[in-house]
Every structure is written in structure tokens, then in C-alpha cells.
């Protein structure tokens, strides 16, 4: 791995000014994606700006209006184990507990996962289904705008994700068919229900990355049951094919994972 400068700012403002002075600098969260990428020479930052020491980026809190806020630097294991998340959004805690393995979960963060926006990552599906708000050092971005394609987000240069906010009274369930080796999703489906409104977000399957499956949303909004999906499957032409699964198989898995998530929400058995 090529060497680089290392910064450990104590405030967000300090982090922003380091990034502004050095065009080649990159943020470091848990490093669980960035370090493997740097080892392969696919990223060669001139400096890393570690977010770990900045207070306020880690932690989970319930707001007065019942919404839930999770700091960008909160690791997957802490989200999974949080009594607050387990109570307010048990489906999100269960999702976090199924990311990678326990060692990666102790290090990898919510902010790093969504900023990286891997097309097979788990969190993006839940955030999109839950219509979450991504808060940065300069603005608030709705999930529908934030996720913009393969490894692509609405983040501008040097913009730092600080928090993710989830609205109250919404429930989510996530069903994933994972690669037995990496645990990344071959197909992962998050189904969120808020009153009668239903949103369905699919990760791992889309040729252009994360997407909302609107046909399923409409059917489930009319009738929240596995039967409501009828024979629906997404069009394989818009899905990804690789050594793990063909587009047709991914279409079928998308339907099956959606049904599983719906069943979980119906039975309230969100944590297994």
C-alpha cells in the first residue's frame, strides 16, 4: 500500500479544512472497504482524514418527535445491539446483524457503507425503503436523492455524512439472499410500511444499483399480503447477471425476498 499523510481531526470543521487543503485526501471511517481498495491500488489517497475522534458522529438517539438518529460513525455491531434500535426499528437492527461477519461489524460504519454505496450493500436498501434523511455537514438529503447509482451518491466533494434520521411510526423488514462467501447481498429486499404506504427497495439485483420496485409497492399498498404480489417479478432486463446469479434468477429472488420481508412484517417476527 502506498504511504499517505494521516490526520486525526477533533472537529468537523477541522476535517473539512484538511480536505479543502489537500485534493487527494479521503475520509476514513471503519476502513473496511477503503483499506482493501487501497491495498489493491484502486484508491491512492494522498492523505486519510480519520473521523473517529470527532465527537458527535457516533451514537444512537431517539428524538422528541419519536424519530431515530444514528451517527455516521456508529459501527454495525452497535446498531445491531442497540436496545433503542431494537425497540424502534427492529428490522434495522436485524439487518445490521447480518452484514459481513462480527469482526467487520465491529469496525464498519453506517456512514461508510452509504457513502461507499456498493450496489450489493445492505443499509442502502433499508434507508431507501424507510425514506430516511441523510444529514451532512451542510444539508439534509432524502434517501431518494442520496442514492444515485453504482458507487454513486449525491454527496459533493468533501461533504461529510454526520447522521441518518429515520421518521417515527415506520416499520421495516429486510430479507437477504447472501453470497455464502462475502455475505454481500446477491439480492436483498427491504419492505417498509408507514400507515398504509409501502416502499420496497432492492439491493444487489439492479444493473444500475439500488432501486425501488414500484410495481410491488403499488400492489402491497392495495393489499399488504404475499398474495398481492401475484406473479410479479422485476424485468430481468434491468437486473444484473454475474458469476453468482443470472438476471432471471435475480428476478425470482427479488420476488421471494419481498415475500419473506412482507411475511416478517406481518408476523412481527422481525428479529430472528
Amino acid at each position: 500500500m502506498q504511504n499517505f499523510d494521516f490526520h486525526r481531526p477533533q472537529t468537523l470543521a477541522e476535517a473539512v479544512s484538511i480536505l479543502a487543503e489537500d485534493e487527494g485526501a479521503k475520509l476514513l471511517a471503519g476502513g473496511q472497504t477503503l483499506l482493501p481498495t487501497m491495498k489493491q491500488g484502486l484508491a491512492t489517497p494522498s492523505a486519510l482524514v480519520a473521523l473517529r475522534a470527532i465527537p458527535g458522529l457516533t451514537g444512537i438517539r431517539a428524538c422528541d418527535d419519536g424519530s431515530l438518529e444514528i451517527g455516521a460513525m456508529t459501527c454495525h455491531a452497535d446498531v445491531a445491539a442497540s436496545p433503542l434500535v431494537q425497540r424502534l426499528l427492529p428490522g434495522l437492527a436485524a439487518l445490521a446483524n447480518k452484514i459481513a461477519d462480527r469482526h467487520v461489524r465491529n469496525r464498519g460504519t453506517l456512514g461508510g457503507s452509504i457513502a461507499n454505496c456498493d450496489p450489493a450493500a445492505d443499509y442502502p436498501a433499508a434507508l431507501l425503503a424507510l425514506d430516511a434523511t441523510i444529514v451532512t455537514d451542510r444539508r439534509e438529503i432524502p434517501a431518494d436523492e442520496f442514492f444515485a447509482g453504482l458507487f454513486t451518491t449525491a454527496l459533493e466533494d468533501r461533504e461529510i455524512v454526520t447522521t441518518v434520521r429515520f421518521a417515527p411510526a415506520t416499520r421495516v423488514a429486510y430479507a437477504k439472499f447472501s453470497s455464502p462467501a462475502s455475505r454481500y447481498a446477491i439480492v436483498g429486499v427491504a419492505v417498509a410500511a408507514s400507515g398504509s404506504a409501502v416502499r420496497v427497495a432492492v439491493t444487489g439485483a439492479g444493473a444500475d444499483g439500488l432501486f425501488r420496485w414500484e410495481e410491488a409497492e403499488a400492489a402491497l399498498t392495495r393489499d399488504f399480503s404475499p398474495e398481492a404480489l401475484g406473479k410479479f417479478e422485476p424485468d430481468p432486463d434491468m437486473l444484473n447477471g454475474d458469476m453468482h446469479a443470472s438476471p432471471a434468477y435475480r428476478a425470482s429472488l427479488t420476488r421471494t425476498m419481498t415475500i419473506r420481508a412482507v411475511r416478517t412484517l406481518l408476523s412481527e417476527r422481525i428479529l430472528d
Partner: protein
Amino acid sequence: MVPLSLTVNGKPIEVEVEARTLMVDLLRNTLGLTGTHIGCDTSQCGACVVHVNGRTIKSCSVLAVACDGEEITTIEGLACDDGRLHPMQQAFADCHGLQCGYCTPGMIMTAVAIADEEDLLEPARLREELHGNLCRCTGYQNIVKAVIAGADAMKRSG
């Protein structure tokens, strides 16, 4: 070079390292603690697992400089000073939980971290928890047996 102070197996350490130094390289090359192994160097195998503040991490995928001020425990930090093995190490020996031993330091550090979580010790669940640790020769049957026996022994020895 970046100055770094941390605690390794209870001993305070002050060193200067290149920013790119991985935790596993600091342990093996600078501190001579070669019990922590590098199996893949691509964060797949778990041979390099150590504890940072009591939590397992893959030391091939964490920068040494990212652990400033933290407490590191490696496989060398488990046995007693008089050479008596830690109950989890003893259980791996007793249950034939190792053959070549390459994966063993990572397995044992993982096992020690989950030993007090009763609900994780149910065999199917335990196999899930060991997902980040690959063994190429023993097979997991005896490893699972060893973790359960070791956790039990840890409880009895307080």
C-alpha cells in the same frame, strides 16, 4: 512517521510508524508478536483477529494509527505468565480444535470474545458467529466443540 501510543497485552507501547502500517504488521514486525497470523491479507479469513478494547477486529484491515490510545490483546496475551494456557487455548488442545494451527490464534481470539454471550454458544448460532474465521484443515466440528468447552471452562474459572 506518525507517533502512536497504545497498550498491547497490558504493556504501554510508544512507537513511530508509517501511516500505512497495518495493525498486524505493527504486531508482527515491530513488536515481534508473530502469534497473530496473516492468512489472506484481504479481510476474508480471520487468521489476524485481535481484540481492540475487547472487541474482535481483523488486524490486516485496520491501520495501526487508527488505534491510538486503544487497548490491544493478541493471542500472546491470553496464557498466564507461568506458561499455563488460557482455558480456551486448553480447550482447543483437548478437543482437537486445531491441526496445522494457522487459523487458531484468530479462532481463539474470536472464541474468547463471544464466550460470555450465552445465546451465541448454541452450535448453529456459533457456526454463524465463526463465519469470519476460516479453517482449511480441522473442519469446524471440533472447533465448535472446543469453543463450547472453552467457554464453559472460562465460566468455571471465573
